[in-house]
């Protein structure tokens, strides 16, 4: 059963807490917390009620009366009686009734002419429909969306971040409830498939297909994850779709797949076929009705006559009682009762409203003794639907005007203000406890809600305080504390003298014996001068590269078995190299589908349910809190705000430390969750070294990279700050600026306005892990490849500068090997470290030069530079194309 709370007009009336007999009455109004706090909870509790037999307080315990007097004239007043002089109460309550409307979604692919096709998506229900869509390009793997090419976007489209477009559906014709949007497809483009979900802005509900995005393939070889529409397979196999129910995160939207589809299909173009498919959907539509209540005193009998009228359709029963003795307890009035009245469990009366003579709506008359103080009621529409007054009982007070105290001014309202509801709720709670002390469970639930609300508010306050408190204090301040004990080991920096080797690329999984291959290179890597090795993600993964982990405790992967992994770690420890595990904490692939067919239930040792999944990604219907960071759309994002999740992750990290022997972590996609949790994890697992991947875009203006990338590095520094410096971060800023500087011969970019390095390394060198390439940016993926042929300039920069440099595997085993080896040995020989002091001596169009710790000089760029021939005696240490490094002897 469910109760539908409705908004009374008088919500903030100063007279809500009215007075009886001149004294203060405590009439808490307003409703259950769930409505104030999150609608999500409302539904979950609603479901809970439905499943159990007991009635939650939503419908019973939580009822409170609300007193509204006739003198509050700011509401719509419906005069229903001619004897207005005797009217003591007159109120029109708007009520919302939720109806289930059924209709269909259809998808039509039509050929206009050769290579010009049209995809139409429509819906037959009224609503404010939005098509939320993106495309997959040829060669894309995974289920990530991309922005469609400009010419595909219908007018009125809005880009959502960098992966989706929202296009409103237009009404087909005025007065018609059909909405449709048409997208023109040009098959010349490299779009492989179109993905979409439908969103109803009115209700906030998302409509998906089989719990996944709708996917319309435009090519033959689009992988079928079971959510294809109109593909040859999917198309003919619609019968198979019968089990599909989508439960969006908002109520009342089901897409039931029992659809028939069809239309002539012709083979055309790249095997594309025209098709037309329909899927029935249902939506809860709010109907606006009203209940008007008039109470008057009958001059002859002195009785209170209450008339209740409503335009609600169907049968309506008034479930009511009366109040006496200044008490809001429901009591049964003396007989006679109105017609069609039955006694309900000795607690209330039920009176069915009669159809009015004019056929428009229902009405009922209640004649009650004069000494009664008021009438309380709720409306019952059917067994499962009740209407109350925004969580409260309707309350009709029978005060004669003489007894009415003078109305108070607005003072009360300003006093209560915007937390009034919450505070009222606490009061209700307090009363609840005292009057229903046996209902512990309910009370508990309310308390949980309050606690959750407190947590939510505190988190909000925290995040704003964090961002408004100037996060960046200049380097000297940041550094001063850990500067003094020079060789203090901290997880953000290791010893300060670390040099990382990324020990894999995007193809490393292919041999199936990567761990063994790597082991063989241990001596070699150690002799090159590396101190830390970063291994690929070790867990069982849906994708072979390991970044779509599934069972975190299963460490048999495409790189080798757990035993081979342990052996490898041991081997590297033997040669004095620490080993970092690649920990993917942001997301995790599910083992099972939920009842809606959405993959969000986990198995294995960490058999989390959907509470472990963030709530704000419609694809995965998580029941956790909103994500504390950005979402990664290809897999359920883990909700790190859940205690049980954090506990499990900490345990897992500690297990990896112990079982595998990892010394630290490379943390994948840390943009996805708050850095404070990372601190928590670092504190628990006590790594020797840890570095997070916080990768977002630099600032560009008109396609040109901005000189000032402070905002970009600030975001990274913020993240490090959030971890309390327990982890470093890859210096994406430096990589980006090196790209621009080297590619376009703009070496002036390499000094910020203060004469410091312009990347993270200029602000917080000890936490910056500098790199020029990794498995994503380079390798066979090449998402953001370092300017070709200029890699050595990049290494000449990062291997001489402060920060902790990381060298990519591919570069070690390339022609650059000997040059890199010389730079590594120089760095070790001269004991350059993450906090080395850099003095930029030249940053011009074609040359950048710096002296580090007064013992190493370097220049990159075609331009000329020689270190000053003064007291120091410089000798060339390494030299190559467009770079040169000197050291003092």
């Amino acid at each position: 059963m469910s109760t539908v709370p409705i908004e009374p007009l008088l919500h903030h009336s100063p007279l809500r807490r009215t007075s009886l007999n001149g004294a203060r009455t405590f009439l808490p109004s307003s409703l259950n917390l769930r409505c104030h706090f999150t609608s999500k909870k409302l539904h979950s509790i609603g479901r809970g009620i439905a499943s159990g037999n007991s009635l939650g307080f939503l419908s019973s315990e939580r009822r409170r009366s609300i007193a509204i007097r006739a003198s509050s004239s700011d509401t719509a007043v419906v005069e229903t009686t001619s004897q207005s002089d005797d009217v003591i109460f007159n109120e029109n309550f708007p009520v919302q009734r939720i109806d289930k409307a059924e209709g269909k979604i259809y998808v039509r692919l039509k050929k206009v002419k050769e290579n010009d096709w049209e995809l139409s998506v429509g819906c037959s229900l009224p609503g404010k429909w939005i098509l939320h869509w993106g495309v997959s390009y040829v060669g894309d793997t995974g289920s990530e969306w991309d922005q469609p090419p400009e010419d595909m976007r219908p007018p009125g489209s809005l880009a959502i971040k960098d992966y989706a477009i929202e296009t409103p559906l237009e009404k087909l014709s005025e007065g018609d409830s059909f909405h449709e949007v048409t997208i023109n497809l040009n098959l010349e483009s490299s779009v492989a498939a179109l993905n979409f979900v439908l969103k109803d802005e009115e209700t906030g509900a998302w409509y998906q297909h089989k719990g996944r995005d709708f996917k319309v393939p435009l090519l033959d070889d689009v992988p079928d994850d079971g959510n294809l529409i109109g593909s040859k397979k999917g198309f003919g196999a619609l019968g198979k779709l019968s089990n599909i129910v989508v439960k969006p995160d908002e109520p009342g939207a089901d897409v039931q797949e029992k659809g028939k589809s069809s239309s002539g299909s012709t083979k055309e173009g790249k095997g594309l076929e025209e098709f037309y498919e329909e899927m029935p959907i249902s939506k809860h539509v709010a109907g606006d009705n009203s209940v008007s209540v008039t109470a008057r005193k009958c001059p002859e009998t002195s009785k209170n006559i209450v008339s209740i009228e409503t335009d609600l359709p169907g049968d309506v029963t008034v479930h009511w009682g009366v109040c006496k003795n200044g008490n809001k307890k429901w009591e049964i009035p003396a007989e006679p009762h109105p017609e069609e009245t039955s006694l309900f469990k000795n607690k209330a009366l039920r009176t069915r409203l009669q159809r009015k003579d004019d056929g428009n709506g229902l009405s009922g008359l209640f004649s009650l003794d004069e000494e009664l103080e008021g009438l309380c009621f709720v409306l019952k529409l059917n067994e499962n639907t009740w209407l109350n007054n925004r969580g409260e009982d309707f309350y009709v007070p029978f005060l004669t005007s003489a007894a009415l105290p003078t109305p108070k001014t607005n003072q009360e309202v300003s006093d209560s203000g915007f937390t009034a509801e919450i505070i009222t709720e606490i009061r209700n709670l307090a009363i609840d406890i005292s009057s229903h002390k046996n209902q512990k469970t309910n009370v508990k639930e309310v308390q949980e809600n309050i606690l959750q609300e407190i947590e939510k508010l505190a988190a909000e306050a925290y995040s704003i305080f964090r961002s408004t408190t100037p996060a960046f204090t200049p380097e000297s301040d940041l550094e001063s504390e850990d500067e003094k004990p020079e060789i203090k080991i901290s997880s953000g920096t290791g010893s300060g003298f670390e040099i990382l080797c990324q020990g894999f690329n995007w193809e490393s999984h292919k041999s199936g014996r990567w761990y063994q291959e790597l082991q063989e290179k241990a001596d070699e890597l150690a002799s090159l001068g590396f101190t830390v090795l970063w291994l690929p993600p070790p867990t069982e993964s849906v994708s072979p590269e390991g970044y779509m982990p599934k069972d975190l405790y299963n460490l048999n992967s495409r790189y080798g078995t757990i035993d081979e992994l342990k052996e490898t770690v041991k081997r590297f420890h033997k040669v004095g190299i620490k080993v970092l595990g690649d920990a993917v904490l942001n997301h995790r692939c599910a083992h099972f589908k939920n009842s809606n067919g959405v993959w969000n239930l986990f198995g294995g040792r960490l058999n989390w349910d959907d509470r472990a999944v963030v709530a704000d990604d419609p694809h995965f219907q998580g029941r956790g809190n909103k994500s504390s960071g950005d979402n990664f759309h290809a897999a359920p994002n883990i909700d790190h705000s859940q205690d049980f999740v954090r506990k499990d992750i900490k345990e897992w990290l500690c297990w990896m430390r112990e079982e595998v022997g990892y010394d630290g972590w490379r943390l994948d996609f840390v943009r996805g969750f708050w850095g404070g949790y990372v601190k928590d994890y670092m504190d628990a697992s006590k790594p020797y070294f840890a570095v997070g991947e916080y990768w977002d875009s630099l600032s560009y203006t008109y396609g040109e990279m901005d000189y000032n990338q402070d905002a970009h590095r600030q975001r990274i520094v913020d993240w490090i700050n959030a971890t309390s410096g327990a982890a470093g971060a890859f210096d994406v800023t430096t990589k980006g600026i090196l790209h621009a500087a080297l590619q376009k011969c703009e070496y002036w970019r390499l000094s910020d306005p203060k004469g410091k390095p312009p990347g993270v390394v200029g602000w917080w060198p000890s936490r910056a892990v500098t790199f020029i390439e990794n498995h994503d940016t380079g390798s066979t993926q090449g998402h953001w490849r370092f300017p070709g042929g200029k890699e050595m300039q990049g290494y000449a920069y990062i291997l001489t500068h402060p920060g902790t440099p990381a060298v990519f595997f591919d570069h070690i085993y390339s022609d650059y090997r000997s040059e890199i080896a010389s730079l590594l040995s120089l760095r070790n020989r001269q004991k350059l470290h993450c906090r080395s002091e850099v003095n930029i001596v030249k940053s011009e169009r074609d040359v950048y030069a710096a002296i580090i710790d007064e013992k190493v000089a370097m220049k990159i760029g075609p331009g000329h530079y020689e270190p000053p021939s003064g007291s120091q005696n410089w000798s060339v240490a390494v030299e190559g194309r467009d770079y040169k490094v000197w050291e003092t002897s």
Partner: protein
Amino acid sequence: MEVSVIGNPQTKKIYRAELTYRELGFRFGSQVISGDSRNRVSFLTHQSSKWKEIKIRSSPRSVRCEAIVSDQAPFLKPTPNSRSLESVKLFVGLPLDTVSDCNNVNHLKAITAGLKALKLLGVEGIELPIFWGVVEKEAPGKYEWSGYLAVAEIVKKVGLKLHASLSFHGSKHPEISLPDWVAKIGEAEQGIYFTDRYGKQYKDCLSFAVDDVPVLDGKTPMEVYRGFCESFKSAFSDYLGNTITGITLGLGPDGELRYPSHQHETNLSGAGEFQCYDKHMLSALKHYAESTGNPLWGLGGPHDAPAYDQQPCSTSFFSDGGSWESQYGDFFLTWYSSLLTSHADRVLSVASSAFKGTGVSLCGKLPLLHQWNKLRSQPSELTAGFYSSGGHDRYEAIAEIFAKNSCRMIILGMDLSDEHQSPASLSSPESLLAHIKTSCKRQGVVVSGQNSAASVPGGFERIVENLKDESVGVDLFTYQRMGAVFFSPEHFHAFTVFVRNMNQFKLSSYDQAVEGDKAKTMSIGSGTTGAASLQTA
């Protein structure tokens, strides 16, 4: 006045709701309640434990305030026994830079969310630091309250109480200085700031010696402070007595009654230095020396006091049998401490006359100078200005001043415990706190608590211990201070547990009251609080 409706004791989490029953129409001012040791008025005559009471309780403070207003009741003393946390009200301080020097409210959204969270948590109120340098920034007599008024309005809307701290000092972190025009005067005329023997000025607070010297454009600092208080009173008249329940007067550096004996040194290894070298101090000293017949003693401060970074006993002044115990020492320290005492008196009387009749309680803040207090000389206290001739109680004179001005004393450092102090510092915050409390008790001064600025290990536990202390009732505790750290998951969780612990403690006696099944909801006066319930199928 407030009514607490206290919930089911069998559940762990308890919420209190404070209701303002304005129409109820009775006032404590006209009633004598001192007989009730907990200052609780029960409207039930049944003493049966089976009855559930809805209690109206009033803190000693609010009762006392009424008493002051009517100018008749004697100063109500806190009750010594049957101590429970029930009567402890919890306040939380807002960030020092809540209002920027352009009168903007900083972190507005964060504060609003934070206040709601605290309200839900059951916190009584909020402390708002109001800086002289922000309000009267530009010109004397030109007050700009808008930022602070906006904060007061938010606090009021959320339904919390407000405790305003009028700060006549500046702050280093965040940087808030004295009013610009004062700073200008300070540059032109040497000697309005505290100065150490090296001539280094402490520019965040005016010297006690200029209190009654017309150094500020022809006005004395006391006159300026008075103007500030009056302006505050009229600007906040709508809030005084209802939302604003307390005002703390800034008595010195960081608002605390003390000399800035460490200036801004963060290194607290030493005992600090005497700050008596500004022009006005020196001339007052000279005058005092001449009047006591020792003109040679009035030429400067002690020559054998240690420097900031020196151990107290590295020179002869503070050692056993050292100068501090000599006749000269007594002469100097008596004078030095008398300036502190009279400064407190001046500020507090300015405030008590300004806020008379507003129904707010006045407070002053005392530091907990626990470093080196195991040394006989207790040098940290001496450099900060706490001394009493002949080995008498060093806090007695101060407590007397507070009592005289009906002012409560906020004691800092209630979170400090002996076990977490470094043994080398010879410090004992616990015993010093007990000492000050005793002095207050003797003088009938109500004590409020506050934690030290930085969070310390075991802090919350120590605070609860202190609040439970039965010998001196602390009925108000201000937790410092809201901000990013405060709301960080780690800290906020600990804070929540702390608040809950307090609340649980509060209910211990109540638990038994509802053991029986006959517990009922009672009504107050003719108003009802009955809850309607309805069972439906």
